[in-house]
């Protein structure tokens, strides 16, 4: 069914076309909105092709198109192409969908940008969509890695989109470096794996793995290296620190790249190669433990954030870790399922948060409150997203979350399972903390010195979009009233909300056949912990029945550590400053003053010696004659007596 491979290819190439047009045709790009229309048009076409391709590959059908990319020794070393099967086309559809919606949304969200900047934005967006699709459809590790790096590049470029702001410029670099550190492992893993199996091709390798033709000795190191790549990209501990900072980018970017697609690449990678990881159970155990730990860590961190985007960012880290845990437990399909639903509802949440920021001109939850009155539509869709994330029945996250919990338990990891149940509770709590504080509760500012502000002074950095929007809000802050966003922003929100509900309703009633059996108590426990979280949030932030400050005090050390982000960022910063920059200074000094110094020493010696010898040249001809005569004397002596 090669014909259907071309559909996937078309979906991929349409974005490439959009990027090339915008990159090369500078005048078009500088027009701004027309550039956006070009990009959106291509994205729409791409979505259509992706959906068709998905329908064509729904079953076991696999199509593969490859071309030689890198020859060596007269043979093909590496290829590029597309590998379209059920999983990849499904993921392709998700990417195409979210990319299209985000591009439409951005038209409204970034309407105040200057035209050249907007053109640049859409060029990056197209490049990102192309790279992400290339990653999804990659038939081999080389293309996978290429696109893997390219999406990282786009992430860097888009986080740093407002590069004039120091925080954004810093965050972009941080994101790139941290993920690149993971990629070092990934690249080493690929190289080692190539030596190990003699191929880059996923399909060929899978056949080898199926035949047991891959030697197991040393394979664990390789899979661990590959996992390191996923750790960087999918923000697993300890490389998770870049993702919250990445929120300095425009909110649509956060929705597309840092929630729905790019950050899930690590999960997708592990899912795509689960047959390889299955050969190394030790590494999988590491994946589970790190996943569960990261999930818990970031859920705790999410509870103390006051920046709405950071809450969502930590929530993303937490949910990614959920997926990782499921994959580590050996049931990658469950992780992949959650990846898809999460992609939908997390994009929804981010875009909703974007609408809120757009209206309130602030990222800070303490600046919000009772927004539901002003922007009811946004409130509804955001709540739908929050319910999905909490995993309540009838909403998208319900079944996928359940599956993950079941998978981890079925994998025999009891402690991680317990941690994940706790995370489910925390998730519901922090999500509804946001919902209540932003949309339903009285604004915190009205309760002077209200406890929720406790976290503000300590560590909050909410310069992100707010600072940007503040510039054009400066004209009339007082006169400004929050309002519903324009249609270009509302439309994607509704599409995603309806999809979340549709998926939720479908899977609430139509259970797919799971690969494992979950005990009957699992669902009540999961839903119950979520409901408990919601109730706690309601009691604390809506009714203010429980004092937030005393709640924080109850968890004193944890609360304070969480405000300091458990000092992980500080450790990395120190490592960067001391280990890398400091060491480089030492090397630089050594090079200039020792290695080169030795050379200068030789040179200076020569010059000094020459200076001394110079006096021999008196300039008086007679001295030279004298010298010649003495020379003659010596010569004669040598000839006669030597």
């Amino acid at each position, binding site marked *: 069914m090669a014909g259907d491979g071309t559909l996937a290819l078309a979906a991929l190439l349409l974005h490439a076309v959009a990027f090339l047009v915008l990159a090369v045709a500078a005048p078009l790009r500088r027009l701004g909105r027309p550039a956006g229309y070009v990009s959106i048009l291509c994205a729409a076409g791409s979505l259509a092709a992706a959906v068709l391709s998905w329908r064509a590959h729904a079953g076991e059908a696999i199509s593969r198109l490859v071309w*030689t*990319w*890198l*020859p*060596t*020794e*007269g043979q093909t*070393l590496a290829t590029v192409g597309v590998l379209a099967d059920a999983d990849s086309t499904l993921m392709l559809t998700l990417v195409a969908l979210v990319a299209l919606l985000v591009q439409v949304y951005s038209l409204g969200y970034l309407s105040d940008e200057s035209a*050249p900047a907007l053109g640049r934005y859409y060029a990056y967006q197209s490049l990102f969509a192309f790279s992400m699709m290339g990653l999804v459809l990659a038939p081999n590790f*080389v293309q996978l*890695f*290429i*696109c893997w*790096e*390219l999406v990282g*590049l786009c992430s*860097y470029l888009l986080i*740093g989109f407002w*590069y*004039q*702001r*120091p925080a954004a*410029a810093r965050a*972009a*670099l941080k994101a*790139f*470096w941290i993920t*690149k*550190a993971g990629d*070092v492992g990934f*690249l*080493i893993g690929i*190289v*080692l794996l*190539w*030596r190990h199996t003699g191929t880059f091709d996923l399909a060929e390798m899978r056949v080898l793995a199926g035949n047991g033709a891959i030697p197991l000795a040393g394979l664990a190191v390789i899979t661990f290296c590959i996992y390191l790549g996923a750790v960087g990209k999918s923000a697993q501990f300890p490389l998770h620190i870049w993702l919250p900072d990445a929120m300095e980018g425009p909110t649509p970017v956060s929705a597309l790249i840092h929630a729905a697609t790019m950050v899930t690449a690590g999960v997708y990678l592990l899912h795509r190669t689960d047959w390889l990881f299955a050969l190394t159970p030790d590494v999988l155990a590491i994946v589970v433990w790190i996943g569960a730990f990261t999930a818990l860590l970031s859920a705790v961190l999410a509870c103390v954030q006051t920046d709405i985007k950071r809450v969502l960012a930590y929530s993303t880290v937490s949910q990614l870790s959920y997926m990782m845990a499921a994959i580590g437990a050996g049931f990658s399909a469950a992780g992949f399922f959650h990846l898809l639903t999460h992609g939908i509802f997390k994009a929804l949440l981010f875009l909703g948060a974007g609408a809120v920021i757009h209206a309130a001109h602030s990222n800070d939850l303490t600046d919000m409150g009772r927004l539901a009155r002003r922007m009811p539509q946004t409130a509804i869709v955001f709540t739908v997203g929050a319910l999905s994330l909490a995993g309540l029945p009838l909403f998208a996250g319900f079944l996928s979350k359940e599956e993950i919990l079941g998978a981890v338990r079925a994998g025999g990891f009891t402690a991680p399972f317990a941690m994940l149940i706790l995370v489910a509770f925390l998730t519901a709590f922090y999500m509804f903390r946001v919902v209540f504080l932003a949309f339903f509760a009285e604004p915190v500012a009205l309760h002077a010195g209200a406890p929720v502000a406790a976290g503000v002074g300590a560590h909050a950095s909410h310069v992100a979009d707010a600072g940007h929007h503040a510039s054009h809000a400066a004209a009339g802050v007082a006169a400004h009233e929050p309002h519903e966003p324009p249609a270009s922003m509302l439309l994607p929100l509704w599409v995603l909300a309806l999809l979340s509900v549709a998926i939720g309703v479908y899977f609430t009633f139509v259970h797919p056949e799971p690969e494992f059996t979950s005990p009957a108590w699992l669902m009540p426990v999961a839903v119950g912990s979520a409901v408990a979280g919601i109730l706690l949030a309601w009691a604390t932030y809506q009714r203010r029945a429980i004092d937030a400050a005393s709640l924080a005090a109850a968890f004193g050390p944890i609360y304070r550590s969480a405000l300091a982000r458990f000092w992980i960022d500080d450790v990395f910063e120190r490592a960067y400053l001391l280990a*890398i*920059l400091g*060491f*480089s*200074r030492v*090397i*630089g*000094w050594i*090079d*200039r*003053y*020792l*290695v*080169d*110094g*030795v*050379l*200068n*020493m030789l*040179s*200076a*010696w020569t*010059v*000094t010696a020459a200076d001394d010898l110079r006096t021999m040249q008196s300039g008086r001809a007679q001295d030279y004659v004298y010298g010649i005569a003495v020379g003659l004397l010596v010569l004669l002596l040598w000839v006669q007596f030597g």
Partner: protein
Amino acid sequence: MNRLPLLSIMTWAPFASALIIMFFARRRPLLVRWTSVVGTGISLVASIWVYWTYDRAAAGFQFQEAFPLVPSLGISYLMAIDGISALMALLTAIIIFAGVFASWTTKERSQEFYALLLVLVTGVFGVFVTLDLFIFFLFYEIAVLPMYLLIGIWGSSGDIRPQGIFGWAMGRTGVGTKEYAAMKLTLYLLFGSAFILVGMLALFVATGSRTFSFLELQTMQFEPALQTWVFLAFYVGFGILAGIWPLHTWSPDGHASAPTAVSMLHAGVLMKLGAYGVVRMGMGLLPDAAVDWAWLVGTIGCINIVYGALSAMAQTDLKYVIAYSSVSHMGIVMVGAATLTPTGLNGSVFQMFAHGIMTGLFFAIVGLVYEKAHSREIFKMGGFGAMMPGIATAFTIGALSSLGLPATAGFVAEFLTFLGAWTSDYPWWLFPAVIGAFLTSVYVLRVAGQIFWGPKAPDPHFQHLPDAQGPEWAALGILVFVLVLFGVLPSIAIAPVDTATGQLLLRLTGQ
């Protein structure tokens, strides 16, 4: 077969335009520039033509031109190319063509400047296309010597504080001035070429058959002791030009002091002469010694990679950063060559090309930035991205290639080298190489972030700066295009190179 002597045309066209410039273009700066454009343009067309029509199926040395010069000594004007030298000639042509545009605004003595530059390029072309060792050496010297004048007259001085235990020596030699840099570079390279000359003469004597022809020499089997020390002589001699540690210190000073086009050409092409010399002469003529000493070449290459990257990170002067990045990247070239695997050697040659283009781009941009902002101090500049988006984009693409990001030429080169390293006899080379790539991403993006993609610097001089203009676009456009083209479609470079590396390695490893 009666066809155009393309290789001679390619080599001598710049020389002819240098003569025309010297004799007919006095006080006519525009004529000087256009003559240079035409001369190098002819070379570019010829090199592309050669590259395109090179018969990949037949492989080996093609486009041969030969006539005896000094028959009694076996010296002949012998020119031919294989896949490796075809790529190198193409690189040279691209860099100099862009370099002519990049130095369009040279004001002082532009006539002599362009003439010397073109003479130098003739030397470089000659080295890549000639197969007679004697002529090779002549061209090599032609390529090295004009550098002294080019840096000494048109260069710029930096500011380095003498300190440390060798402080007095540094004060004495005048560290930082352009005269110092020019002299250091020249002395270093001549020191190296003395080794090369001795090695070549030793081979000439050892053959006993009075020939300098590479084609004949490579069929001979020299005795192991001779091979060993001639190989080491070649390694040191060519290696100095390739910037091997610890003989690399001429390179940062030289590149930092040199004018734009000279830095481009020097870092972009001349350092490749060194690596090319090691591969062509060292590995091509002395296969046994090459196998024996691969560990040394590769290990020092690894030191180069990490050490160069860390040194680059410590610099505050933009040109020094780029210069040290060259040291680091040449390490990859050396490691790739030392792997003695087809993949690694392909990577090495590809890295020569990729690094040539990218560093040419870098130095062109440094020149442009300096011309507009009059500063090379990284941490004083900032936020130029908004004012000069074109330059900023070009720099970023160069930076991405430098750190080995896919879809740029740098990735292909590094990836092949990594694969080669892991399949060589010394697999641990992989790790310094990969770490070097990571360190590169740290320093190069730090610089890009500071100068272009960061908040604006408060300095009032930096508030209204123009983007690139006119001919400068040509320089940037050509280099960026090549960088991306070869990154997206690496097979157009690898396919011909592969035909040559395979034959080379056949003799080395006997497989």
